[in-house]
């Protein structure tokens, strides 16, 4: 399946991009490996993950077209 991956805050600086599309993704674990290969530095940072605007805890089941976001600690206000 194809999914979109978004990077915010400091993570957009670390990856040098705000969005990347991944094709033929088999699972979240698979996606995570591929992101780790592309941006090894990313996993040194503190973040949470949202799928389609909802924070997810562990190993979410992905659907085609999902939007996966890497969110550093929030700092609004």
């Amino acid at each position, binding site marked *: 399946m194809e999914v979109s991956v978004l990077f915010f805050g400091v993570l957009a600086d670390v990856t040098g991009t705000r969005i990347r599309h991944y094709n033929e993704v088999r699972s979240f674990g698979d996606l995570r490996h591929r992101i780790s290969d592309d941006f090894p530095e990313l996993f040194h940072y503190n973040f949470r993950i949202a799928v389609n605007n909802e924070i997810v805890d562990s190993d979410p089941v992905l659907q085609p077209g999902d939007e996966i976001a890497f969110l550093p600690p929030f700092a*609004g206000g």
Partner: protein
Amino acid sequence: MHLIDGPVPASAIAELLAKAGNDAESGAHSLFVGQVRRDEVEGRQVKGIEYSAYEEMVITEADKISKTILSEFNDVRGLEILHSRGLVGAGEISMVVLASAGHRKQAFSACSKAVELIKEKLPIWKKEIFEDESGRWKANEAL
């Protein structure tokens, strides 16, 4: 909840208050205004803060905050949130929260709680921009 490009203008605050004032059963409004401080960090002056947001999620989370506040405070009649995206200079306004209630106690509590939830739940990030144009991602302080 509205995301505003750049600083929140005084006119937007006046509009919020005017709108809230139309409800003659409201007796108390608590308004919080967050302003970018001219902080000094290791000898460098903060010129402004660049805000970025995960916009769709900001809107859905702000909607949850409103529902939480309105269900927890039975005297509260309305909650409004404005937040900047993009660059806000030192001395300019980056956030406004207005809680309107029948009486003052719940207006204050609701506004204060909404501000905490905004800081905790809304996917917004800030980068301090210094006078030499360098930047630094900034976490929220505890208070």
